[in-house]
């Protein structure tokens, strides 16, 4: 007869094993940051892949998010004659939450999947074993440069998303909702504090680490040919998206809890 307590215990132990293995994987990758050789070309390639080639998708989502936010908040605030707070709400929402979270979710879909698929394919076609036989540590060559690139690229993307998101709100505010352009921008800048931007950028760095870590982890341990690589890709996107939302709450608590 199935013992439900034993089944739960096995699941918990299995989850603990996975988390432990993931932490060890991350620590090993980070330990290579300080030990030569350094693969600068790999780092620059991934930095360009994340920061430059993700710009269009991040920019578009940020602009539309800012536009929608201005429109929705106006619709709500006008009922209480508080429409003057639209600029404040847009800038706070974008810099603290929506900029980092939406940009990171976009990058998770693009880069997390790409890393998992590339490393997973390398695993199932013996390319990772080939690295070892060519006297190259696969963790140092494949994982460490990606993690570093993710941690650096995401704050840059979020800074761009913050600016474009606010501009999206300004665009709708001035062209559709009847706000004065200078007044909208003044309200935005007056209300914005350094911590709002800094918290968003710190979140972005953490999310960048999570996205690249999950992409590398899922790809590195994928098995079973094309199906295994597909499963690893899905797992990388789903797990990093959930972690982004969960860590967003934790980081918000850290920065803004009263």
């Amino acid at each position, binding site marked *: 007869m199935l013992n439900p307590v034993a089944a739960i215990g096995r699941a918990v132990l299995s989850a603990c094993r996975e988390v432990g293995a993931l932490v060890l994987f991350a620590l090993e990758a980070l330990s290579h940051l300080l030990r030569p050789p350094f693969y600068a070309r790999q780092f620059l390639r991934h930095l360009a892949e994340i920061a430059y080639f993700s710009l269009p998708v991040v920019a578009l989502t940020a602009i539309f998010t800012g536009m929608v936010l201005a429109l929705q908040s106006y619709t709500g605030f006008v009922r209480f004659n508080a429409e003057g707070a639209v600029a404040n709400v847009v800038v706070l929402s974008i810099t603290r939450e929506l900029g980092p979270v939406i940009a990171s979710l976009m990058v998770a879909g693009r880069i997390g999947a790409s890393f998992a698929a590339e490393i997973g394919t390398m695993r199932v076609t013996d390319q990772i*074993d080939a690295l070892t036989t060519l006297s190259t540590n696969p963790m140092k060559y494949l994982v460490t440069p990606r993690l570093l690139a993710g941690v650096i690229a995401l704050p840059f993307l979020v800074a761009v998303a913050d600016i474009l998101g606010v501009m999206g709100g300004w665009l709708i505010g001035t062209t559709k909702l009847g706000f004065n352009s200078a007044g909208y921008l003044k309200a935005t800048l007056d209300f914005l504090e350094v911590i709002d931007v800094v918290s968003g950028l710190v979140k972005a760095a953490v999310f960048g680490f999570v996205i690249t870590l999950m992409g590398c982890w899922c790809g590195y341990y994928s098995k079973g040919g094309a199906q295994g690589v597909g499963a690893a890709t899905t797992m990388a996107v789903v797990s990093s998206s959930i972690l982004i939302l969960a860590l967003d709450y934790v980081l918000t608590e850290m920065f803004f809890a009263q």
Partner: protein
Amino acid sequence: MDTKAHVDGVPKIRLRGLSKAFGDKKVLDGVDLDIRAGHGMVILGGSGSGKSVTIKCILGLIQPDAGTIEIDGRDVLAMGRREREELNDRIGMLFQNGALFDSLPVWENVCFKLLAQKRITRGAARDKAAEVLAQVGLAASVGDLSPAELSGGMQKRVGLARAIAAQPDIIFFDEPTTGLDPIMGAVIDGLIVDVVKRLGATAVSITHDMASARRIGDDAAMIHRGKIVWTGAAAALGNTGNPLVDQFARGEREGPIQMELRR
């Protein structure tokens, strides 16, 4: 039966009691094997017999559960990370599917080890790649292609060029002719014999292609159910007097291997 090749002095590679299990499945069950320096050893065996796992244990890609692996008399399993990396500098490997790096052009694949260890500049690596590609019968212009643009035979040649670029003294070949037509298979075998002779290297190959085994091997060993059941001259394959080996070498349906499967 004698399961060790007769070696004068210290063998290049010595395996003793090598065992490895994955879960309940015992893949290697006490493998004993000596491989002579400067000679070609071919390890034969059916699918799942443990050939690839044996090679992966020697290369350090899989940690065996028990046993010893010695290269030039030194215990490989007791080596530290740096020592192991130094040993890997002297080893080349041709993977079954080439295992070329998709993200790099052919010339960077060929000189990967030299570039990674900064033993060569990128400019010099292009010239070096052209030189090594010529040794495996490929034009220098192939160096600018990506691996995806190459045929199966060309990928094997590039894999061979990558394996020999750093002039190793031990080279492993995993099914070097699998997936190739007979003529291309013979060409690859000829290249393997040439480069191994030129480098004075020790070659260890795993294959179930008998024609290839006779062409590239001086010695041969057969692994069956995780144990070495025979070693001898590769030229004797098919007429060894060992029913397991002879059945396998002749590709006969009837014999002890099939009978065991039916049981």
